[in-house]
């Protein structure tokens, strides 16, 4: 056993400096796509919507009055639009992509009358949210529920405990029992057969509680949207406080989501980019 301890000590500190310092080595995988829809012509918009394998890029209305909408909550980051229209779509260079409102993940543009972004006003924390943020600021116990994921999200969540990310240093802990949990972190589309276990877990948690939707499956359904075994997305079933986009969300994005949940991280991402955009 002493040899293991010696090996552990010899290995030194591998932990990321995030969130205090950016971590270029951990940020090699993009965390979200940013869309500058005004850069697209009408014809390009139609083509971009055709390229998108999910409903992240959609067209609305007819040719004169119509528009295009981008929804990062449905984007699986396949990169097709980024490769075809590099001027309009780009990968976010920051892992700070978690947001508190679904609208912030969406942006729209009308080619008939210039750009008309979807509502993206910052959501003010309610009194209850402020209270839970105060309560959980220093320590947050998380109950994770896999409600029908592909296991990609779980793989990343497990790595949060690895020396590279070490979520305990930030006062974040996974807990086996919902009775001790402050936050419910849900991954997956919420399948028909997982809806009841998910509701039971939520009901077993004491108030106040935070719900985090991690990954596009939980946020919008992703490639499984509209499937007949899919009862989600999550915000149809439970009130969601924080959305973490990604397929799966990178470990840093998950950390950011948990920090945003307790008021220790700022919302930076906005689907259309922007002044405080990441």
């Amino acid at each position: 056993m002493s040899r293991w301890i010696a090996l552990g000590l010899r290995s030194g500190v591998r932990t990321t400096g995030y969130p205090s310092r950016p971590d270029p080595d951990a940020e090699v995988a993009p965390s979200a796509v940013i869309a500058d829809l005004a850069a697209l012509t009408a014809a390009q918009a139609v083509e971009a919507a055709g390229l998108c394998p999910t409903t992240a890029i959609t067209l609305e209305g007819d040719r004169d009055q119509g528009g295009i909408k981008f929804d990062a909550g449905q984007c699986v980051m396949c990169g097709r639009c980024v490769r075809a229209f590099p001027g309009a779509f780009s990968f976010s260079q920051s892992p700070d992509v978690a947001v508190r409102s679904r609208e912030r993940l969406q942006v729209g543009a009308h080619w008939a009358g210039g750009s008309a972004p979807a509502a993206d006003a910052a959501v003010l924390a309610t009194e209850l949210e402020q209270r839970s943020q105060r309560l959980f600021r220093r320590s947050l116990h998380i109950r994770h529920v896999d409600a029908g994921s592909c296991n990609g999200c779980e793989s990343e969540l497990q790595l949060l405990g690895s020396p590279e990310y070490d979520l305990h240093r930030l006062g974040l802990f996974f807990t086996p029992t919902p009775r001790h949990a402050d936050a419910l972190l849900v991954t997956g589309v919420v399948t028909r057969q997982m809806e009841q276990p998910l509701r039971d877990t939520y009901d077993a948690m004491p108030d106040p509680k935070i719900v985090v939707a991690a990954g596009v499956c939980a946020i919008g359904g992703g490639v499984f949207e509209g499937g007949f075994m899919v009862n989600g997305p999550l915000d149809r079933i439970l009130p969601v406080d924080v959305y973490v986009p990604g397929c799966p969300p990178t470990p840093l994005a998950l950390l950011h989501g948990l920090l945003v949940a307790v008021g220790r991280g700022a919302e930076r991402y906005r689907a259309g980019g922007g002044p405080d955009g990441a």
Partner: protein
Amino acid sequence: MITLRDLADRLGLAIDGSSSQELRARCAPEAFLGAATALAAEAVLADLFATTGSGQPWLTAVFEAAGDPEWLLLRTQLTGDSFPSLTPATHVASWYEREIHEMHGVQPVGHPALARLRLHDWPVGQPPMRATLDRRLDIGPGVPSLVPIVHGQGVFQLPLGPVRSGPQESGEFLFNSGGEDLVAVSQLLGFKLRVVERLAEGRTVDQALMLAERLAGVSTFSNALAFVQAVERASAITVGERSRAARTLMNELERLHNHFGDISRLADATGLMVAGAQYASLKEDVLRRCAELTQHRYLRGILAVGGLQAPLPDAALESLRQRLPEWLRRSARLERLLEETAIFIDRVETTGVLTPEYAAPHNLVGPIGRSTGADRDCRRDHPYAWYDQVTFEVLVKSQGDALARLSIRLFEIRQSIRIIEQVLEAWPVSDVAAPSDSPATGEALGWTEGAGGETLHWVELTGDGRLARWRARPPAFVNWHPYAEACASGNNLTDYPVIEASFGLSHAEFDR
């Protein structure tokens, strides 16, 4: 050694179609039971599935034989919604037939235990792969129960799941225990059922590929590659040499991060925290190299029909090349330390034993199969991508315990690094793909050896490049079959986390 072609000749089966490495035979529905049973006795039944759509259902059995690079697909079109069950003579058919019954509503007559496999509260008479679905249907009877339940003095039941203790996948287990020993274990799976194959029907191949990539997260690449290869074979597309080399490279990177991750969880389950952290750290490093190569940590969005979506950047290949000696050194040191840690070896040796005798009729695949004496590895037996250009060894053991499964993974880590080195060394410059001149229509099998084992995907394409039918048989489907038995065979309750980690079975792959 007997080839599938000889076997088919001997049984009088006419081979009515073949492409490279794939023989197709059709027979009358009355002859199917006899032919399939005879084939299963001498060859390996690798998959059995139904396809339903317009017209009568089709039944397909996939066979392979030791030393034969070909596959044999035996197909028959049924005249009704039932067929005589293969299970009484061929044990491995049991779960395949239960799946056919609940998902397609086709009855295997004479199946000894036709319980539901994955559906919990789904209406009776509405097979998900076939029914015109109505969300407002009433829930029918037939909710599966966890059996067996053992009764007796001092015997109690301990449930686990479906919501587990840490960030884990959802599944439910029931332990029957007399205090310390596990008398019997039962499992209830299917919580994550998304019916991926039905969702794909009618989608373009490009869109269906996104689903194949999301069948299971940690085996994204092996599933997607098997799917893409099936599509390419169905439409007679030849893939360029560099793309094939890149696919081989990424197939091995995925094996590496899976094996590192599985061993990390096994070390954690035995309380060896430093080893768990060290292996998790290695997994993270592999994932970062994957991200450098493809912009995605789990290698999504890189595969395309006919090649790759984008070439692998030279800088990332160079950075990978520089990492290999370090991975080899670090994993060799950890392996040595694990072997010399007696308390660790005590926990894994003779834990969760699957004897070769019990395992054999299940046709197990991957490291779990190879730990029980099943000498099968698609990379060697049915070379695909660029595996005919590299040399590697396959380890087979017969102890069937957690230690044997661990040893095989440790061995495969070294082989994977060796394969990646060879691919990088011989990195081909030319990448000329020969586009198909025949229309993309037809059906074909695709296969890969994923980290979990043999992964089979079968597709049927329509003329306009859409998916008519898709059958995915990921390795976890096969390997879950004997799992409960391995848990109960002389183990204690406290062994369960070790057994579970040593199997490393994917719920997402099984539930689909």
